[in-house]
């Protein structure tokens, strides 16, 4: 049985740029697919094709059992779209926005009104319901946009970077809403640049780069592909880095990575907690003072870097260029990737040189 969203060989070019270069997708009913990729990877183009906004050059797509290219208006009855830029009319009130969308979904005026009231309450917008959306905060606007996408409780939802630009509290709140939707049986395709978000919300993840799907699987499967766990040590004194590296090289299974400025040394390991204890003992014996130590599983950030050779957020990679060039000579100075959190420590030697190529 084909999924609620099914696409085969989608190709879309804009001039010389192949925004989609043969994308296949399949989202089983009631599941969440996270479409993960950097800016310009083709995520938005894919969503625009699947939501009937854009005709692909070739390929086919079926959404909610209906052919997207042959019967776009049928598809539109069954989908909700929540965009990257909250598409609500800022001069209408929250209520007016939702009533308008309801009526354009062909609901009778009275039903649209009742539904608007329900959604405003559900999204905690009742107090602001009769203020123009112009006065809303970013989080409120995003909630209103999501409410607009849910007016008919569509069986299939598309969300294009739903939490981009939201503060952590609002992001958390939006995640809860999304999880509830999915618990209610909605099929969701979600694009995101945030690996954490895909990890948190999606059953399956498709990593997309330059218009191609370069990896797919569950979050665990993708992490396993990048390699297993590793030990990460932050030493107290810069002078101790060399000793720590020696210890980790001896006990670990693979190449060590050193990040000088954070005094962090990392090595892939096999053996879990037992090995961690051994590392601590050995470092202690050698008189190395430890600020932090831990057993880390790979994050999706690591997956991303190992798959694409660059970080998830291209903007973040740009400032890394200079340090990558400067640090070229010594073996493991991987600091350059500099995207988020752990990303910088994990790049294998092979990937560090390419982090600067972001730009466009």
């Amino acid at each position: 049985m084909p999924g609620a969203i099914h696409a085969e060989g989608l190709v879309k070019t804009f001039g010389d740029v192949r925004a989609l270069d043969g994308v296949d997708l399949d989202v089983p009913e009631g599941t969440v697919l996270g479409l993960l990729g950097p800016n310009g990877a083709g995520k938005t183009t894919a969503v625009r094709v699947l939501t009937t906004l854009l005709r692909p050059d070739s390929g086919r797509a079926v959404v909610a059992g209906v052919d997207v290219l042959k019967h776009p208006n049928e598809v539109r009855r069954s989908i909700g779209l929540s965009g990257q830029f909250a598409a609500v009319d800022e001069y209408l009130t929250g209520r007016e926005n939702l009533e308008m969308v309801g009526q354009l979904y062909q609901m009778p005026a009275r039903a649209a009104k009742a539904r608007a009231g329900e959604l405003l309450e559900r999204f905690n917008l009742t107090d602001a319901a009769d203020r123009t959306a112009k006065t809303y905060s970013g989080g409120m606007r995003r909630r209103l946009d999501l409410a607009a996408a849910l007016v008919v409780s569509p069986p299939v939802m598309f969300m294009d970077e739903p939490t981009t630009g939201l503060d952590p509290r609002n992001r958390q709140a939006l995640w809860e809403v999304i999880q509830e939707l999915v618990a209610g049986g909605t099929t969701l395709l979600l694009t995101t640049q945030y690996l954490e978000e895909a990890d948190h919300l999606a059953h399956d993840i498709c990593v997309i780069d330059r218009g191609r799907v370069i990896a797919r699987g569950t979050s665990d499967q993708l992490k396993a592909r990048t390699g297993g766990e590793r030990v990460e040590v932050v030493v107290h004194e810069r002078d101790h880095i060399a000793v720590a590296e020696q210890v980790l090289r001896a006990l670990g299974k693979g190449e060590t990575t050193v990040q000088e400025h954070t005094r962090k040394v990392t090595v892939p390991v096999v053996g879990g907690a037992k090995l961690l204890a051994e590392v601590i003992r050995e470092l202690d014996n050698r008189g190395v003072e430890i600020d932090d130590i831990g057993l880390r599983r790979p994050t999706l950030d690591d997956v991303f870097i190992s798959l694409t050779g660059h970080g998830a957020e291209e903007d973040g990679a740009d400032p890394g260029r200079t340090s990558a060039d400067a640090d070229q000579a010594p073996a493991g100075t991987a600091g350059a990737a500099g995207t988020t959190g752990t990303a910088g420590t994990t790049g294998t030697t092979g990937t560090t040189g390419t982090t600067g190529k972001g730009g466009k």
Partner: protein
Amino acid sequence: MAVVEETGATVAAAPRPRGGPLASVRDSLVVAKRNLIRMMRIPEVVIFGLIQPIMFVVLFSYVFGGAIMIPGQSSTDATVYREFLMAGIFAQTVTFATAGAGAGIADDMHKGLIDRFRSLPMARGAVLTGRTLADLVQTALTLVVLAIVALIVGWRIHDGILNALAAFGLLLLLGYAFSWIGALIGLSVRTPEAATSGGLIWLFPLTFISNAFVPSSQMPAFLGHIADWNPFSATVQGCRELFGNPQGVVSDAWPMQHPVAASVLWSVVIILAFRTLSVRKYRSATA
């Protein structure tokens, strides 16, 4: 975030659209209502839209008033020119609806609202029709204010109220036609700013190479021909006839001899052509 249980089944699609022209009319009215609410909440736009034609009335009637001789009239009497001028100003004012429609639609594209609309199961032309209908309401409002100002500076209707209403009908039809040109401009440019200037620039040659401000018989011959066949001139001439205002020497060109018919014909042709082009463009529009 407080969450209230969904009433009934969560997974349901929109009701089957009733389809047909009725649904199309309903969708257009929903969008028109939205645009009218916006206009009321941004009154500056309407007010500036009124100031410009009022300024034109005052400037033209008092600056040019005594200098332009209307052929067939005995003197360069300023009151005669004012009566001659008013139909021209009315017609020019309604064509400015182009810029409003264009800027509005470009703004909707820019903000992602067009994407929202295009993802909804609504009639294809409704977003544009709704916009042009809202502009028609604004145009009507502008004409009322302008007519009052015109009456104050000495313009009069001489052929009865029914003919005068018919003249305003011609003007509204022309304005509606031009807002469809604006819709196409709005869908074709990248920014609202470009739509505003792109919607205005070509209106100046169009409205000045016409019989609106100066009789075409006083222009160089080739410009006079253009002016006689200018769709805009037909409406101006038709209004002068229906208002019973001075017309100057009327050219033999067919549109000048049958200005009311020519005006309706031109407007209908413009609506059909630009509505078709705009709706086609809308279906593939990308921000």
